[in-house]
Every structure is written in structure tokens, then in C-alpha cells.
């Protein structure tokens, strides 16, 4: 196999090279790129996830709407939408309780975005899906059970 320079960068550098290049302004086109928080995506329970994110207490809120089918036929593609009506919503995180790692995705909003996002996630089995919302510095939760008739982890 021919080893090219870009491969070497990818394999042997990873984060270090990326951040070095970033500091040199190589990625100036994307200044606001959030850095991926590995720890948040490694947790297996709701308690661990909240701990990893530094979330103390959460309040259940009916102002958070989770849009999804009650029964998903194909666990590989489960549409999930989360909309928050809480004022000053800064963040929305989608978590699937019974997946190998809970966190599916996390969205952070500026003032110019409406906290209403949709995505498609994989679900290994029927599970509760949680939406964690950060609004005005406080954390709120909502959950919804989604039944899956065919798992999405290629089992």
C-alpha cells in the first residue's frame, strides 16, 4: 500500500496534529467548530452521562417535545426530533438509553437558531429516548419510549 502524506497525518497525528494546524490558522474557515467531547459519548447510563457532562440536577419539563414514531420498524433509521419551548435554550442532547453508548447527538444553539432539530438515530432495541435541554443555565429532561421491531446494530 502506498502511504501518502495525508494518511500519515491522519494515522500518526490525530488530534495533536489537528490542533497544531488549527492553531496555525489552517482551519480558519471553521473557527467555531466545537471540539468533540469523547467522554460524553462513552457513558452507558443516564446517571453516568449527566455526571460526565457536569449536570447536577435536572427537572422534567413538558415544554420539551420529542417527535418520533411510537414504534420504529427499522432500528437503523429512527427519526427523532426535539423541540424546546423553554426560553433561552442553549443546548439539546438526544440520548438512547439502551444503546452501547447513550449519547446520540448534541446540538448547541446561538441566539439565531430555533431550538428545534430533527435527526435520525440507530437503536439497538426498544428503549427510552431522552432529551436533555439546557436553558438559561438549567437542565431539563423529557423522555419517550420508542419500540423497535428490528434492531439497528447490524447484529
Amino acid at each position, binding site marked *: 500500500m502506498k502511504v501518502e502524506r495525508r494518511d500519515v497525518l491522519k494515522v500518526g497525528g490525530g488530534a495533536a496534529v489537528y490542533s497544531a494546524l488549527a492553531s496555525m490558522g489552517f482551519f480558519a474557515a471553521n473557527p467555531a467548530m466545537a471540539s*468533540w467531547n469523547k467522554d460524553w*459519548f462513552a457513558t452507558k447510563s443516564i446517571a453516568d452521562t449527566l455526571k460526565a457532562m457536569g449536570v447536577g440536577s435536572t427537572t422534567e419539563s413538558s415544554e420539551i417535545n420529542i417527535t418520533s414514531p411510537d414504534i420504529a420498524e427499522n432500528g437503523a433509521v*429512527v427519526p427523532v426530533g426535539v423541540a424546546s419551548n423553554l426560553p433561552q435554550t442553549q443546548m439539546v442532547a438526544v440520548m438512547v438509553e439502551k444503546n452501547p453508548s447513550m449519547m446520540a447527538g448534541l*446540538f448547541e444553539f446561538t441566539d439565531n437558531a*430555533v431550538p428545534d432539530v*430533527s*435527526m435520525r438515530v*440507530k437503536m439497538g432495541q426498544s428503549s427510552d429516548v431522552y432529551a436533555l435541554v439546557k436553558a438559561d443555565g438549567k437542565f431539563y429532561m423529557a423522555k419517550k419510549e420508542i419500540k423497535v421491531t428490528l434492531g439497528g446494530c447490524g447484529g
Partner: protein
Amino acid sequence: MARPMRIRARMAGDIADVRVLMAHEMETGTRKVNGKAVPAWFISEVTAQHNGKTVMTAQWGPAVSKNPYMQFKVKGAKAGDKVAVTWKDNKGETRTDEAAIA
């Protein structure tokens, strides 16, 4: 090189509704082929910009479906404005695509 994203942006009142379809394998790292684990390969970071200003950033895990679909809404937009979406995967590859709001 990754294939381009498909971005559709449409005004609904004074809010722009943006739908993005990305082309990506989104390997979880837990799948096995012939007993050999397929290494994880997924989009980990997404940034959405409206006229060059960031409106939303996202962090994703491998639980996002293959060829990810994402929908978000931008306040204070108008027809003709530019919406750009950038993703970066865990191998460091990135791609940016842009569309005008219809």
C-alpha cells in the same frame, strides 16, 4: 473525497427551515464482518452557518444513522441568504457545502 451534502433551505414565516442530507458511512465500531471489527468512522462535529455566522454546532456519536439527516431552523433569515454546513469525521476529514435559502 466525501460526496457532497444535499441542503434544502426554505423560508417559513421569518424562520428558515434547513434540511441537510449528508453522505457518510457512520460506522459504529461495534459491527463485525467475518469476525473482524469494522473500525468506527462517523461524523463527530457539525457546524451550521448563516451568512458566515455560526448558528448551531453539534456533536454526534456513532449512533447517528448512516447518511445522516438533520433539520434545524434559523431565525432572522431571509430568502437568498446563504446557509453553510460543515462536518468533520473522527478520521479528520471535513466537508463544507452551501445553499441559498429559497
